[in-house]
């Protein structure tokens, strides 16, 4: 029964509609709870980044906008995050097929590439801070630190969940016990990759893309 059909129910009517609803309601599906929770969390995080992008766009529409200087490291970091996602997806496929070695390797590689991405971001922050054009009052620079910082914090949160799954692996858990954890981590990795690709393409690759979009919309 889909959500809107459920909302169209008439609970005051007598049976047999009631009885059918009872049968269809089924038992509590607790195993699905973490998946639903992650979906909602992804919704919350999406709003957060959407707000930041909107704020960035709003500020960029001003005449005195100065783009942030570029750091080449971001492209390499992007590649790291793509690899992280691919590795996690591999772990997920392996979990489905029951291949424990693939799960172990995929998870390990996914975590390692994610850690490499974080280190790369830290290097990019340091690199930017040493540039001649660095100016804390330039909104573009401040936005760069804020948005990438929040993205990294979300990734660190993901690594905590990743560690919990790793812990299960090290303790020798069966593959059936790991399947959900691996799937959820993979989903979260993909989400953070998509967020990063949007941020990178829109905001941190020279502002040309966003500038063109704003011009098309008549905002700039």
């Amino acid at each position, binding site marked *: 029964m889909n*959500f809107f059909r*459920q*909302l*169209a*129910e*008439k*609970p*005051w009517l*007598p*049976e047999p509609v*009631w*009885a059918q*609803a*009872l*049968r*269809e*309601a*089924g*038992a*509590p*599906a*607790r195993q*699905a*709870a973490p998946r*639903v*929770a992650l979906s*909602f*969390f992804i*919704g*919350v*995080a999406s*709003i*957060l980044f959407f*707000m*930041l992008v909107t*704020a960035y766009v*709003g*500020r960029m529409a*001003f005449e*005195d906008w100065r783009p942030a200087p570029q750091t080449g490291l971001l492209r390499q970091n992007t590649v790291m995050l793509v690899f992280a996602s691919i590795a996690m997806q591999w772990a997920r496929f392996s979990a489905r097929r029951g291949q424990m070695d693939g799960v172990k390797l995929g998870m390990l590689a996914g975590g390692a590439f994610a850690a490499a991405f974080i280190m790369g971001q830290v290097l990019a922050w340091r690199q930017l801070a040493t540039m001649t054009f660095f100016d*804390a*009052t*330039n*909104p573009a620079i*401040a*936005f760069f630190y*804020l948005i990438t910082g*929040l993205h990294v914090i979300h990734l660190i949160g993901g690594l905590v969940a990743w560690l919990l799954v790793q812990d299960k692996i090290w303790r020798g858990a069966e593959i059936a016990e790991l399947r959900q954890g691996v799937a959820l981590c993979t989903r979260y990795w993909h989400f953070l990759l998509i967020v990063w690709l949007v941020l990178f393409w829109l905001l941190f690759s020279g502002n040309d893309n966003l500038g063109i979009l704003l011009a098309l919309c008549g905002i700039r």
Partner: protein
Amino acid sequence: MVDVVHDAVGVDDVPAAEVEDVELYHAKSWITKYVFSQDAKVIAIQYSVTATSIGLVALVLSWLMRLQLGFPDTFSFITPQDYYQFITMHGMIMVIYLLTALFLGGFGNYLIPLMVGARDMVFPYVNMLSYWIYLLAVLVLVASYFVPGGPTGAGWTLYPPQSILSGTPGREWGIILMLGSLALFIVGFTMGGLNYVVTVLQARTRGMTLMRLPLTVWGIFVATILALLAFPALFVGAIMLLLDRVLGTSFFMPSIVELGEHLKYGGGSPILFQHLFWFFGHPEVYIVALPAFGIVSDLISTHARKNIFGYRMMVWAIVIIGGLSFVVWAHHMYVSGMNPYFGFFFATTTLIIAVPTALKVYNWVLTLWRGDIHLTIPMLFALGFIVTFVNGGITGLFLGNVVVDVPLSDTMFVVAHFHMVMGVAPILVVFGAIYHWYPLMSGRMLNEGLGRFHFWVTFLGAYLIYFPMHYLGFLGVPRRYFELGDADIYSQSAASLNAFISLAAFAVGFAQIVFIFNLIWSLRHGRPAERNPWRANSLEWQTAEMPPGHGNFGKELPVVYRWPYDYSVPGADQDFIPQNQPAGTPGARAAKA
């Protein structure tokens, strides 16, 4: 581990089925049972006690404000700086740390698992963390009273650039602690909020379809979704403002000269903060109002012994109000200098939101119509809510229009409006709900006489405070002013009305002390409550023991056969049929007909 078996022997419609066991955390010590507890009911009480305690601080702050406004030049210990700090802390505490925390953290935690037929929230550990982070947020907020400069006096909206410039009280540490506390609150709430939503979606007992949920759960459920989607905007705004204050970034700070000195800020947009703040701020009104709508629906139906009129409409209205609340935020910003076309758009959406809201009011009234109305204390508060909400809502229609709002925007009219609609109305529901569910939580009834005193003084007192305040607004008396001084533009009646309002506020405040006394006194000395004293249908009253024990429902989870509003069903043995009563059993003869 609790064995959970749905035993439906003898019931035609629900096949017997065994449900997988539910892992419940069992406390092993006093500390894990009552302090770091993972039981939603204990967490609910922790939330409620903390929220009420900090709410009492905000109440005292309002008295201090009223002392100054009613009797200016009398109390030398209240300086203009103090006054602004009182305003700021009173507003923020009441809106966020009291009402949001109490409705969602308090009532949400207590009622959701019980009403949906679950043993607990789906993530009890995260639920516990949510409370402790909330407590930390409250402590950080309170700490601002003990730092140099005291708490921030920027007004509860914390608008930059003023909030972080010299001259604003609490510019040194107060604003930093306020923003940090808000960020913590949001993190804690997100943990709790995910729990509430997922519990409603995933942990309902068998037979509890979405359209059999009590409206209380619907209100809390949709309000939680609103909060999850709206709080990120405040989070972003708070973090950016914090960076402007601490690291000297210029997200919101324009190029500015302060005391003859050109500050290093430049290029920021103060309006951007207003947009972020109100993108959160307006849904916040409904984050508080929707649980109140839901609870009041259940109170009215139960105490009028009649099924709620238009249940499906009520659910849809809650969902539609929730959706619309995200497209009205800029009606708080008509005087910010934004594009007039924006104003037209937001005025239109604001007026549209009155439609589903009015629909709910009609349905409450129609539920009462020809009902068997019992004027119990919860019912009195519910009736008080309807009247107050209509009054507050109507002045909202005034202010939703740009041309009316502009002259009234900075006057006491706005203060009166939002206190009626967002302060008094929801808090009346809070009181009604406490009188209604106190027997369930404590096993004892609250004292009836004290309760009636509490209601009448609060209800009538609130009108004595806020009706004259609307008039002050029409006279042009500005809000946020420490004192009016000798301005000739205000008649003498403005000053005497202010004194009158203050006296009424003290009386209402005193009634709250009586209420707190009643809460504490009745815990030991209240009349023992019978099982299901209001003869209600919803599952929280059908637990194995009262107050409900750990795991809520004993060995077997209830199975639900009907909606929660089967009151006064013709031909039934009693005037209520609990949700877990199968059709065809003696108490539910009519339902089979």
